[in-house]
């Protein structure tokens, strides 16, 4: 009987909630993110109700006046799981703060579609694989912190075109090759690169940038 009442309860809940299914593509992208984040012990995603018309009322999500998502603040939230390509749908996103969690898998190359991104903080997770070259499309990017992960491969040379980049940190990964010296990279301290298997600054024309990879 208890199970039956429970079923009825769930059904009526579904019934009342699915009246307005989320039609907003940004909401769908965030909902896809939620479904890939397999563990959420602090219930930080509890408010992410997919039936709401737009995700602007969800906690840790901030919208602009046109109801476009501009901030995603999930730093230090104990969440785990992985990221999917859907995140690239958040075209207006300026701040992607996912630092200090247990997220694993690759950094989706679709993050390169977030044209308005100012800050990408993925540090202190378990990301693997290479830094996607597509991040070089993020022309507004000022903060790119990927330190303390398990990233491998070279630092893409294409990132030297990010002229607004003020803070760059890839320390404590398994990156290989050499350290770029062009563009904003002239200003970054050596601490941003330590604890990798990098082979020192790039010697243009002498060694290829992925030397030693």
């Amino acid at each position, binding site marked *: *009987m*208890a*199970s*039956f009442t429970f*079923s*009825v*309860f*769930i*059904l*009526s*809940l*579904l*019934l*009342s*909630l*699915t*009246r307005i299914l989320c039609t907003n593509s940004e909401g769908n992208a965030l909902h896809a993110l939620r479904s890939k984040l397999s563990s959420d012990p602090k219930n*930080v995603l*509890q*408010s992410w*109700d997919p*039936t*709401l018309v737009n995700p*602007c*009322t*969800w*906690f*840790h999500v*901030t*919208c602009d*006046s046109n109801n476009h998502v501009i*901030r995603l*603040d999930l*730093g*230090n*939230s104990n969440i785990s799981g992985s990221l999917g390509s859907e995140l690239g749908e958040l075209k207006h996103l300026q*701040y992607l*703060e996912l*630092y*200090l969690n247990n997220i694993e898998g690759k950094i989706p190359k679709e993050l390169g579609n977030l044209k308005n991104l*100012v*800050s990408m*903080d993925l540090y202190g997770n378990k990301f693997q694989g290479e830094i996607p070259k597509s991040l070089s499309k993020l022309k507004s990017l000022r*903060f790119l*912190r990927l330190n303390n992960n398990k990233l491998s491969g070279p630092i893409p040379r294409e990132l030297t075109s990010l002229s607004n980049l003020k803070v760059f940190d890839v320390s404590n990964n398994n990156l290989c090759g050499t350290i770029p010296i062009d563009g904003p990279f002239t200003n970054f301290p050596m601490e941003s690169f330590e604890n990798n298997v990098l082979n020192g600054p790039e010697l243009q024309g002498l060694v290829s940038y992925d030397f030693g990879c």
Partner: protein
Amino acid sequence: MKTSSLFFLLIISSLCINCLSNTIPKWVLCVDNERLALLQFKKDLIDDSNRLSSWSSSNVDCCKWAGIVCDNFTGHVQELHLQGPDPLLEEASTRMLARNINPSLLSLKQLKYLDLSCNDFQATEIPSFLGSFRYLRYLNLSMSQFYGRVPHQLGNLTMLTSLDLGNGPWLSNVPVNSLHWLSGLRLLQHLDMSGYDLNRASDWIQVINNLPSLVELHLPSCNLTQIPNHLSELNFTSLTVLDLSYNIFNSLMPTWIFRLNKLVSLDLTRCLFYGPVPPNFGVSGFHNMTNLKILRVPENDFMNSSSVLNGLLSLTNLVSIDISTCNLSPSILGSFQNMSSLVSIDLSQNLITEVLPDSIGNLCNLRYVDLRSNHIIGNVSVLLNNLCDCDSPKLEYLAFSANRLFGHLPDQLGHLKNLITFDVAFNFISGTVPDSIGKWSSLKELMLNVNLISGSLPNTIGNLTSLNKLEISFNKFNGSLPVSIGKLQKLEYLSVHHNLLTGDVTEDHFANLTSLTTLWAETNTLTLKLSVDNWVPPFNLDVLRIGYWNLGPRFPSWLRSQGNLTDLDIANSGISDAMPSWFWISFSNIVFLNISNNGIRGRLVGNLSILEPNAVVDLSNNLFEGPIFGQYNEAGIALLDLSNNNLSGSLEDFLCSKLEQDTQLKVLDLSSNKLIGVIPDCWMNWQALSVVNLGNNNLSGRIPHSVGNLSSLQSFNVRSNRLSGQLPASLLNSKSLQIIELSENELTGRIPLLINGEDTKLKLLSLRSNKLEGQLPNELCRLTLIQILDLAHNNLSGTLPTCFVNFSIMSGKQQSSVIVLYDVPFQVQVIGSALLVTKGREFEYSTILYLVTTLDLSGNKLTGSIPKEVTGLLGLRWLNLSGNCLTGKIPDEIGKMTLLESLDLSVNRLDGKIPWSMSRLTTLNWLNVSFNKFTGQIPMSTQLQSFNESSFMGNELCGPPLAKLCINKTVSPDEGEQNDDESDQLKWGFVISIVLGFIIGFWGVVGPLIASKLWRSAYFCFLYKMWLKIRIMYHVIT
């Protein structure tokens, strides 16, 4: 010797009678006085259906009468077979013999067999003279509606082998005090006393135990509560059938039952026997009961034991097993794989979590499988395939609903052609429905609801000619609704709601659905395309729910033919038309009416005779106009939603007119209309009200005090009107209100003190944008469950209370749950909702409102410092203290408020450094500390540096994100704390000189103000705000 001579005499005398009476032919066997007795017996019976028509004086041979068996030799009546029809059959009562039993029956001295079962003896007592039939071996009075005591004289029937007094499942009102009278029936093999109240017959088990011949014992529903756990001497070991069902013993499972090893059938349904079952010579439970074929033990916790369930493995002859509702959690499903004779398995409503073994599909004799409501995991595909592979599958009933099953329905599923019920609802089954189901010609119920099934519904569904119920809601069915569905002449219940069906629905889809009573198809993208204007549907529906279909733009006129409707949902269906006048006279039983979210025009009518009491009426989001009539309060409506229309006039008529008794209204939503006038003080007869929403109208005047006395009121919303006067204390003192939303009105005066705030349930209090004044009363802190406190934009003064620690949800000591204000399953659920302001924007919150915690005191005249008690609100998500006259520092402990998402302290007179602890606020995504007197470096953290410069402007701050560099080198958090004091000292002289100059310069103006503290703070506050406004203007311009 004596009896045989008597017998001889009898024969002689009967021969003599035959010789003497010429009227009776020689071949007649019947004994005359027995014939007369039978006629007498008939005379006392009502026999409407003439079952005893052969019993007549014209038909002299009573041995040839219906139901009579005579001794072939003596002609004495030996057997009387007068059982009536099965009482469950339709019109059975007309074919029953009724009234009472005439004692003339006693003349049938040789009677051995008497069956009067299933007749209607109209609550008379069982006649005690039945105990005088000394040769009686069989007595069946079951289901014959005898009432009262059982005569002890029945104990004289010493030849009796079968006694059936069963009353069916209902209890006889007169309790049986003792079964001692049964002790003499030494030959008794079959005893059935079902339905007799044996609660006081404490000797029942002793008496039964002394009936050595007993083979069958039926004592269901006997109100037995006492049963010994042990029997030292077990005498009725020949027992093959034991039925103790529906006696709530609620005791240890008696171990002696397991010693009845000849048992073929055991029924302990709802005996509430619990374990543990102690091991008995190394074996416990069913190990020795190898003859068992039928085992029914639902609602007995003793079954929830691995060792008891292991015993089932010995029962290789089992044909039918029912272990439903036993809280089973150990694995059990594997036990059945070798029981090839199994016909019926019922394990429903347990806690079975194991993986579904495919081997169950090999039990080809199965007809009935019920595994509903467990937590069984696994893929159904292989199991169903195995069942289909049986030579001639016998399966009739398959119910796997409410488990965690996945997989898809195999293509050959149609091979189970004897299926009557197929129920896999509430699982995770995906894939499509195979075409082969069209072979299920016997199927009556198909339940696939709440799964992940996609694809289109196969056209072969039209071949299920016996189908009565089709339930596929909450899936991902796409494509169109097959036209063949219109062939299902027996279909009564069609539910396809919440799918992705598209396309047109025409008259053909309903062509032969003459039996249809429920059409529940809302939330699909279907369009009703009728080829004729005056379509008359073949059905007459009770339930029609086709919201979100495209039905418009004209109002569907065929609804007029559906006069039996109880539920009508045509919300969101693109109707843009005038409300037809026939609508309000075409129905009479409506309990659920939802025509919301259309463009339906017209005035409301006064006559609501279409409604049943307690109806739900949702006409919101349309273009209804005119006044709300007084008659609406007489219709017994439970929920009335007229929000977002163009209704005008006052509330007077509706709330006050002709109210003689209490209304049933629980939810009243008249928000967003054009209502004017006052809120009348007529709430005395509206005690059922739970939700009142009058927001967004043009109401004026005061809020009546009586509103606060509505004892069931949970939510009161009058936001955005022109209400004035004082806030009634009764509202804040209500013991039922959870939501009070009075924002954007013209309320004046002080916030009333709370007298009995301890009993409050208040979760949301919004007095935003009114003209309230005075100090924040400390009594506010008695609102311990408050989670949304919005007093912004008033004229409140004084200091912030320091007792916030009493707020148990805001301080993180207690969790909140969804605020459900009204709930009728499958119809409507009203959840607490509110418009809330955060991060500078306004949003509607409903489903997640319960998760919001906010304290907004912005835009007042509050003075003093931010008490460090505020930082104890560890569950707070939004804090807005901006636009006040707060002074002092931000408490260092602010870094503990780790749930904080939005923090606005702008436009105050706060000073000092921004505490480094704020760098710990990793969830902060909105910050404004602009236009204060903060100095020093902005603390470093990923979050804090991610905000715009505008969040910090108008201070003396330095460091990123501001362009201004700090003179000191970047400091670590620890150094920063020390530096606070140093820089304070440096500026100390500067501050002193300014203060001195200020005091001296304005002494003449300020002097009088010192007299009153209130004047003082208000005056400074005003001056300061003016100054800030100029500064903000300056910043905006530049």
